């Protein structure tokens, strides 16, 4: 009884914070389609024009325009340049800086600039390259506000594609969400749709703290419907709040970034089976929206977490622990984690497919959570 009342309160608070959710469904037929790439580009453009202290640092490596064929064959660094398309012409080379290939160097320079009141946006070609600069992200950016007792804040944004692309091998495919999310002092965001991308990037740029903004290479070219509110230049989303992409009552599936798309497809398949899945788009990995996830689990009583990264110490592990701490009594089934395989990403195409979560894996896990398939342990009838 109490659970239901509390859930309603949560539900209403969620509704208030994200009115776009309801209008999105209502006006989807007339709303504009926007690619994630354009969403990011427009966000950067608007924030740079609003505040002259914002500047962009990237390994631009020339004005490569991506061959259309390459979109299908590989996700290339060329995608990155489409994100900042037009910005060099509009704001000039003093505000859109083209750096040589020295991650540690230019990340440190960006952090130093942020100490003194500028707002850099440091772009990594992929977050795998951020490992060359991770000392500055963690030690110089994340910890400084604490070490200086609030005197120096670091309003910097580190952005770039994260996670696996197609066939790029072990050193280009790691997901860094859990690494960065474990560090206090950083905010970690992972958008899925264009609305997320726009809103969260604008919020990140305006934010006075260091933000790690994890995009996804394969999502750049995908289009999503956006409402007029999203296109408004003052639109920004709150950090630390998840979004319920699809309401359901049987099982909660949490995901972020590309996996949200997979989870939505899984939900379609499960709906045919009579399982109604609630999909939560985490949006923010740190701070994690624990109230929303807990509220959802208290409603559905089952949880499946989905992520692309390595299983041990991943985002799913954190969510699972959080649920057990707060909502243990509400769980009717063990929490399932779907993650990438516990191996460095193999190159061979079939092995790569096996190493990443697929829609079938999510469907199977959801079914297991609902005791619809072969039970793994002592099963109760549901």
């Amino acid at each position, binding site marked *: 009884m109490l659970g239901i009342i509390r859930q309603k309160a949560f539900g209403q608070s969620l509704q208030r914070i994200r009115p776009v959710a309801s209008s999105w469904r209502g006006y989807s037929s007339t709303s504009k389609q926007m690619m994630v790439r354009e969403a990011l580009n427009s966000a950067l453009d608007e924030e740079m024009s609003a505040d002259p202290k914002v500047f962009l640092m990237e390994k631009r490596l020339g*004005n490569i325009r*991506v061959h259309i*064929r390459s979109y299908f*064959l*590989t996700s290339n660094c060329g995608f990155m340049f489409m994100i900042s398309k037009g910005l060099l012409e509009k704001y000039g080379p003093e505000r859109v800086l083209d750096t040589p290939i*020295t991650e540690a160097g230019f990340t440190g320079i960006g952090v130093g600039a942020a100490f003194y009141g500028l707002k850099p946006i440091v772009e990594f070609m992929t977050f795998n390259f951020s490992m060359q600069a991770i000392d500055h992200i963690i030690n110089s950016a994340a910890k400084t506000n604490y070490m200086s007792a609030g005197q120096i804040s670091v309003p910097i944004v580190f952005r770039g594609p994260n996670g696996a692309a197609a066939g790029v*091998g072990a050193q280009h495919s790691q997901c860094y969400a859990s690494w960065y999310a474990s560090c206090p002092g950083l905010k970690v965001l992972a958008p899925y749709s264009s609305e997320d991308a726009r809103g969260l990037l604008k919020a990140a740029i305006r934010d006075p703290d260091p933000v790690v903004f994890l995009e996804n290479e394969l999502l750049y070219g995908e289009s999503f419907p956006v409402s007029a509110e999203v296109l408004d230049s003052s639109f920004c989303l709150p950090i630390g709040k998840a979004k319920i992409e699809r309401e359901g009552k049987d099982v909660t599936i949490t995901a972020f970034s590309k996996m949200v798309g997979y989870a939505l497809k899984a939900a379609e398949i499960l709906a045919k089976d009579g399982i109604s899945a609630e999909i939560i788009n985490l949006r923010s990995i740190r701070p994690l929206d624990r109230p929303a996830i807990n509220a959802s689990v208290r409603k559905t009583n089952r949880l499946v977490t989905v992520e692309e990264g390595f299983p041990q110490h991943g985002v799913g592990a954190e969510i699972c622990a959080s649920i057990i701490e707060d909502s243990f009594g509400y769980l009717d089934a063990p929490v399932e984690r779907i993650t990438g395989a516990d191996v460095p990403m193999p190159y061979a195409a079939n092995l790569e497919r096996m190493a990443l979560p697929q829609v079938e894996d999510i469907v199977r896990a959801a079914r297991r959570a609902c005791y619809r398939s072969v039970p793994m342990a002592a099963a109760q009838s549901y």
Partner: protein
Amino acid sequence: MASAFSATKFTQPLPLNTSTSRSHGKQSVFDPLKSSTSFLGSTRKLRFTSFPKLNQPNSHRPSLVVAVSEAVKEKKLKSTSNLLITKEEGLELYEDMVLGRAFEDMCAQMYYRGKMFGFVHLYNGQEAVSTGFIKLLKKEDYVVSTYRDHVHALSKGVPARAVMSELFGKTTGCCRGQGGSMHMFSKEHNLLGGFAFIGEGIPVATGAAFTSKYKREVLKEGDSEDVTLAFFGDGTCNNGQFFECLNLAALWKLPIVFVVENNLWAIGMSHLRATSDPEIWKKGPAFGMPGVHVDGMDVLKVREVAKAAIGRARRGEGPTLVECETYRFRGHSLADPDELRDPAEKAHYAARDPIISLKKYIIEKSLASEAELKVIEKKIDEVVEDAVEFANESPLPPRSQLLENVFADPKGFGIGPDGRYRCEDPKFTEGTAHV
């Protein structure tokens, strides 16, 4: 060959510019006669600042600047025209370069047919550097490369079949399909990768050089040191790891040669725009090692410089930085449309195609006939075709391979007191906790 070799060493030293020398005499001196830079110039003077043969391997005596001017070299070349390479060497070099070119062209074809995927970086145009250096190595010498590593693998001796199936992602590849284009490893041929990030391979190469020095001095195995070659590009020369390794290699006199394949472009970033001083060879003397600039489109010149540098390393005299001015005919990778580079620049370097230059040299010096070269080309075509067929027919990795090779230790339980893996002891997993 011997006389041409000696030409680099024993010509009269030219007057030193003492204002640039260090007071404690540890540094080698910049060559004051370096002509003004013109990267697109057609002829490059060969400058070799080197330490002469030292009797005491650990001495810190100041170096003697020995420069070879083009004029002296030309005269030597003309008079000892056949002595730069013998016929066998010439054919070996030709075959290696043609293999590299044919293989890379086939890679492009296969990529566009969808047999290969991900990032594929081709080496067309730079074959002279790979062939010129790697063909002078023994099997025990190490090569560390970047993502543009197919031709380094082929030159080092990895069979074309293994490389092609690795690219196709098949289980018969040199890394069982787990590495891919950018991560070629071969323990048998001492090819240490294949790294995706620039600058990543340089510390690894320095470590390999450290191993050979350690083996010789601490473990007292073997006589001559195994040399390591580190290949990397111009963009890497702005990266911190490069400088750190130059310092350590010179400090510890490691048997390593740092080979810069300066093709002027870091993906789409021009070297001249990214670097405060574009002459990379100068960074060597700043750390106390010789810095050499060589025309990387001429395999014979590269080979000369390589001989000297590798010889230096083998004798324990320390590292060398060799900057090879070269060019890649294709884009950075197969997904790069390569629209940025000036067609005039591309045409200029296409005219200096290393394979064509070597062919001309071989024919002009009557080392071999056109027909013999054609035979080699045909043989290479067959090798590449066979590699493709083999790769096509090879099986994909089985599902069970997914979780293999994460650790060297099969179950992760470590090594027990008897020196064997604990998981091999059948009693090990009975019960769990130990008091």
